[in-house]
């Protein structure tokens, strides 16, 4: 992992407002279809799932497949139910998880 994931939340938000969240993570997203110089298959290594929770409740989930480019960028919208903290999880093949948390300032 070459860098910490980037998370972009609005500086603040009102209850009921629909906000955009942007995430960017460094990952090779190896599809498992490519061959190396010796002709052997490069093993598949994908982040197969991305999920976002807000105040403990899941608000967004995406399943990523072999067609996803390296360093995936995901943006999505959600409605703000109240104050709380976002928890973003990327799950890699093999089960490793990358978790980032960031609180939302609600005015």
């Amino acid at each position, binding site marked *: 992992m*070459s*860098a*910490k994931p*980037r998370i*972009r939340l609005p500086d603040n938000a009102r209850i009921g407002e629909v906000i955009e969240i*942007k995430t*960017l*993570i*460094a990952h*090779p997203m190896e599809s498992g279809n490519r061959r190396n110089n010796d002709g052997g298959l490069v093993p598949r290594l994908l982040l197969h799932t991305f999920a976002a929770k807000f105040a403990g409740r899941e608000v967004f989930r995406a399943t990523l497949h072999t067609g996803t*480019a*390296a*360093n995936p*960028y995901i*943006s999505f919208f959600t409605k703000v139910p109240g104050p709380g903290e976002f928890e973003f999880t990327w799950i890699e093949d093999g089960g490793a998880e990358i978790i980032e948390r960031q609180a939302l300032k609600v005015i």
Partner: protein
Amino acid sequence: MKTIRRNVCAAILVFASGLAGAVHAQQSSDAIERELETYRSMMRSDPWSNPGMLDVDRGETLWKTPGGPNNVSLEGCDLGLGPGKVDGAFAALPRYFADADRVMDVEARILWCMEKLQGFERAKLLNRPHPGPGMPVKDLGAIATYVAYRSNGRSFAAAFSHPKEKEMLALGEALFFRRSGPMDFACSTCHGDSGKRIRLQPLPFFSKPDEARKIVGAWPAYRVSTAHVMTMQHRIYDCFWQMRLPEVELGSDVPVALISYLVKQAEGGEISIPGMKR
């Protein structure tokens, strides 16, 4: 995309029946270029979609964190505006540095600071200094990307007033046009006219300031096909390889001279880092 495919098929059919085909193929390649431009403008409209930003973050951490055998940060590194001053420094490079008695671009200068301040071994920094496909840009390149990013929104304004800067600029211009090597290639072979391309990649005509301004300010750039940030020194290294010329050393006078020429051609062009390439 469907229309493009239909147009390409149609073009192939028409081509078989005569000269009209060439005209149609031209139209369909314009259509592809339009689709690509839509993609590029979507990327530009949301800088967050550029994974090169991850290396801007990484470069910032590397710049500020003590490292190397001497365990010092690069905040004592003078990029031309005083030690540790990063904002706007890239816009005034390349420039002459009295301490090194050389003209340096951003990468040559960071290399010098990593060697002199942090105590890294120069030979190690120069051993495979550029990333292979799918590998992240090396530390030096990430730092250069961060430094360049901190000049975003400014224009290229290197002075080229010191005699050594003038000398470097003249060398760059000469190298740009000088044909050499087994293929008898010069930079100007590919970059000496408008509308040239390698495969589907349009090439800028660098002696025309309009075209240079649009391109030079986008480097270092994230390259989608190799999934990493590519720096200007890496770009020139690759051009030399493509021209079948001897390997060019990172930070040496040849790339610094060529970068001086490119920056001079792009004078007044806006800096917008990291760019996004094929």
